[in-house]
């Protein structure tokens, strides 16, 4: 994949200085607290560059690293990336295995990076669908970074929002049952409002660690959310970019944030009304 020296290079040099100047201008206006991304277009990028799909995914992972660094410099506190959907298990087993191998490498790299920049890393999704070694590495990384508060990176893996909602409902049911509110304490004549409330479901969501996203970016020119954060994106500025994910760069981020700032008053008003 790529090395730690590349990451150190992104943080330093004249490009970093120019970027910080650009971000200083952006910070005159409101900066999103939470940016979420659907990293679509890695295979199309590979096809365009006449490289194999895994090299395309590598390029996508590098683009995500760049985004994390840019967001840290800009003052964004939460970044959430849709790395692997439960639906993606339908792909060819060989491709799935290669993506899992890349995931393991990424976990190792994030372990190193999280210590460099005190990044809290969280994995959101049905982690039981991962192999035991990736699960262990992911859990260790989450535990070792749980105390960092400056920046939170959430990687959605083996995730779909419908699975997240179902999981949260199940946990809410178990919690109510364990609290002793069994069938005896529940009156069927009630109009389904008495026991489990929205706040109970939301606290059991995989994404309970972060506030709702302010911006949700999808690359690759598509206009759907593909079962990503549909619950959390009620008042989220949805941004669809034609560029494929590995080509997402600082100017795309600047464009998205400027667009967000143009619509900020409206979206902020809607959030307050919720």
């Amino acid at each position, binding site marked *: 994949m790529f090395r730690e020296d590349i990451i150190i290079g992104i943080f330093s040099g004249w490009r970093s200085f120019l970027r910080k100047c650009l971000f*200083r*201008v*952006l910070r*005159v*206006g409101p900066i999103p607290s939470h940016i979420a991304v659907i990293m679509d277009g890695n295979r199309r990028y590979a096809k365009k560059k006449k490289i194999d799909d895994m090299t395309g995914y590598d390029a996508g992972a590098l683009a995500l690293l760049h985004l994390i660094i840019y967001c840290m410099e800009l003052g964004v506190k939460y970044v959430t990336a849709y790395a692997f*959907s*439960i*639906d*993606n*298990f*339908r*792909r060819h087993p060989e491709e799935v295995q290669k993506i899992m191998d890349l995931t393991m490498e990424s976990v190792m790299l994030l372990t190193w990076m999280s210590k460099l920049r005190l990044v809290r890393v969280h994995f959101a999704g049905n982690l*039981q669908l991962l192999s035991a070694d990736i699960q262990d590495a992911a859990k260790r990384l989450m535990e070792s970074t749980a105390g960092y508060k400056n920046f939170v990176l959430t990687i959605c893996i083996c995730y*779909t*929002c*419908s699975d997240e*909602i*179902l999981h949260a*409902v*199940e946990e*809410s*049911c*178990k919690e*109510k*049952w364990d609290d002793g509110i*069994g*069938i005896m304490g*529940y009156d*069927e004549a009630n*109009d*389904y*409002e008495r*026991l*489990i409330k*929205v706040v*109970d*479901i939301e606290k059991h969501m995989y994404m309970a660690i972060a506030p709702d996203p302010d911006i949700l970016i999808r690359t690759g020119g*598509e*206009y*759907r*959310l*593909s*079962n990503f954060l*549909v*619950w959390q*994106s*009620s*008042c989220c*500025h*949805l*941004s*669809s970019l034609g560029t494929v994910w590995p080509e997402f760069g600082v100017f795309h981020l600047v464009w998205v944030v*400027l*667009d967000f*700032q*143009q*619509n900020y008053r*409206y*979206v902020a008003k*809607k959030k307050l009304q919720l």
Partner: protein
Amino acid sequence: MDFSNESRVLHRCSAQVLDIGNLLLLSLWHLVHSIIRICNFTLDIANVLESYLISLGLLGRYKSLHIAKLRYLAIVIESEEAYQTSKIIELLQWLEAVGVKHVCLYDKEGILKKSKDFILENLDGAILFQDAHENNVLLDQQHMTLEFVSFSDGKEAVAKAANVLFMKYSKSGVTDQNQKEKIFTESQMSEALKTVGSGGPEPDLILVYGPARCHLGFPAWRIKYTEIVHMGPLKSMNYGSLIKAIYKFTMVRQNYGK
């Protein structure tokens, strides 16, 4: 004394430099945003011209739409604009003319639900989706069906459905099973949502009429794979943009994760 005077002068100078610096940054920020507004304005004019040409039927590719691909359409309207019922009726009439049969109207605060009777009266032959579903007349191509949805059909409905599922959970004895196993399935959740009255189908396409591209809390369970297109404010709606949005939808190909 001289030293403290000097430090005061230095402090005043650095404060002034900071003020000038902040002013410069503010000016740059406003300049960038002004350029973006001009670019957006130019794009809007181009879109209006294109929409006009589409309305006149001068752009060949928009003449034939594969409308059968659009089985269920949702319209999300900013609640402040939802009071413009005449505009909404006009929009629905355009959709009917194009051949769209099933439409879901959403606004966050439920203004459209309150105008339901007025809209149904003024749209020839339109019936409520729930009524059509119950009477099995969905296949009747003569009637347009309308569904009216608001924010309470989203998260709150899922909470109600969760209570329905909790009833099943409590009665079934699964509490004794391995806590790591899945208890409910997506189809059970869908059934529970139908039980609480919020079980409509998943729209293929959502058209958002409002200032920003934002689904405003449309029921999350129903928009997992829905295309979401921003149409601008309702007051600026036009037939050509509607046709273009539907045409673009019919050209989309989804992999569903594959």
